[in-house]
């Protein structure tokens, strides 16, 4: 029993070697197909990362009523901070508002008027949920309900532009990644089927001399698993190289770096190995 098992495992490994050309073609085909999956995962990860950074640039300004003084303003800021969807709110005192006015309009407000007519305010950052768009309006509404808030101002067009696409984009990326994974699975099982098709004689002869289906299948199973494993290692290496290369290239333009997540790649390796295994089982069955 153990002898047969060892024989079958060694058959699987030796058959990789015996059919070097085919095995290499299969492994590189799996490698390339798997690279597409890994790429799509890396690209998806990174694009959504970039979008998160872009969202991090959103600026919300809250203006309080003219009768709110700096002390009251600090209280209002605390109230606003507690609203759901807001990550942080910081106080802009009347004096800071005057500084801003000067920066924006190039005029000292005190040169124009004796007193400072500008109200205190607050600058906000929103929470950035990864999987759904930020719906700005309800948050704005809630802020406006706070007694003492006069007006909320934000880069309406740009934010609504990004957020409008965000969910659709997320869905599209997910669908695309699923499609690519699905395609790759078919591709892999096709490739393995072709490589097994070239050895239908072997299967026929084994059956003629009394091999059970299990016996015939086992070496192909080992072979499929090994091909899937080596293929996805290739994909992991290629994608790692690509990410590192891109990062070198990116460093010429920007500080942003692509991320290569070991966990995701390891998961994908597992998935590819699994489907290589399934693919070779299904392909062998055709000839049994």
């Amino acid at each position, binding site marked *: *029993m153990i*002898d*047969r098992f*060892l*024989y079958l495992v060694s*058959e699987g490994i030796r058959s990789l070697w*015996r*059919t070097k050309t085919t095995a290499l073609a299969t492994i590189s085909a799996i490698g390339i197909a798997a690279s597409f999956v890994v790429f799509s995962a890396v690209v998806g990860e990174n694009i959504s990362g970039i979008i998160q950074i872009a969202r991090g640039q959103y600026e919300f300004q809250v203006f309080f009523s003219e009768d709110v003084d700096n002390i009251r303003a600090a209280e209002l800021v605390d109230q606003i901070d507690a609203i759901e969807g807001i990550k942080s709110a910081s106080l802009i005192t009347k004096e800071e508002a005057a500084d801003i006015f000067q920066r924006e309009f190039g005029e000292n407000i005190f040169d124009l008027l004796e007193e400072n007519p500008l109200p205190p305010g607050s600058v906000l950052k929103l929470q950035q949920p990864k999987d759904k768009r930020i719906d700005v309006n309800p948050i704005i509404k809630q802020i406006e309900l706070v007694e003492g808030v006069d007006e909320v101002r934000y880069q309406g067009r740009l934010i609504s532009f990004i957020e409008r696409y965000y969910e659709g984009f997320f869905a599209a990326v997910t669908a695309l990644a699923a499609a690519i994974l699905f395609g790759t699975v078919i591709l892999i099982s096709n490739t393995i089927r072709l490589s097994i098709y070239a050895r239908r*004689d*072997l299967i*026929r*002869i*084994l*059956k*003629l*001399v*009394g*091999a*059970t*289906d299990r*016996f015939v299948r086992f070496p192909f199973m080992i072979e499929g698993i090994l091909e899937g494993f080596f293929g996805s290692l290739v994909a992991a290496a290629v994608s790692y190289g690509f990410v590192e290369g891109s990062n070198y290239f990116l460093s010429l333009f920007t500080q942003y770096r692509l991320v290569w997540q070991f966990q995701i790649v390891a998961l994908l390796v597992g998935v590819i190995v699994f489907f290589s295994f399934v693919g070779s089982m299904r392909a062998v069955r055709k000839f049994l």
Partner: protein
Amino acid sequence: MISFKNVSCTFEDGAGIENATFNIEPGEFVCIIGPTGAGKTTFLKLIYMDIFPEEGTVGVDKYRSDKIKKRSIPMLRRRVGMVFQDFELLRDRSVFDNIAIPLHVQGVGMKMVKDEVENVLDRLGISDRRDHLPSQLSGGEQQIVSLARALVKDPLIILADEPTGNLDPAASLKVIELLEEINRDGTAILMATHNFSLVKDRGYRFMQIVDGEVQT
């Protein structure tokens, strides 16, 4: 051991076997003769259940063609040693590995496989070809390897389809004598041949296929 009951197995154009009924007992040595296209190979395929009869039943050992499960066919084939007319060797495996396959299929231990294969290589005088690939063998040598693969598993019956077709007279005679020797140890032999002169006076049981009819 082998029993045919009203077995018919024909092809569109009338070739094949019709309504054959007979028994072959354990330890018999049977020669199947008949011209080209008579149905000798078809006959042997029925026994190792590569094809099934349209009518009637073929019984081999404890297996019956009308009841056998797909799962059991390998078990049947392990008890039957086959020498195929076209050898059916694995092209990418050495002589040694080809002969070893039936033993691996049965789960025989590594060491025992080595002993048995070397034993049979010796017996057939092809030890010096053990590492050749089939493509590096002459036609006759391939035929002998095919025979070796049938012998190695120590079968109940040997089905030999034209086992001397690619051999010179001296080698043919040696093969025949070897089969007789194995037969004396109790293994039934079923040999298809058209080399009637080679087998005629050796006291075998003859079965002749004429126009699809099996005459015993």
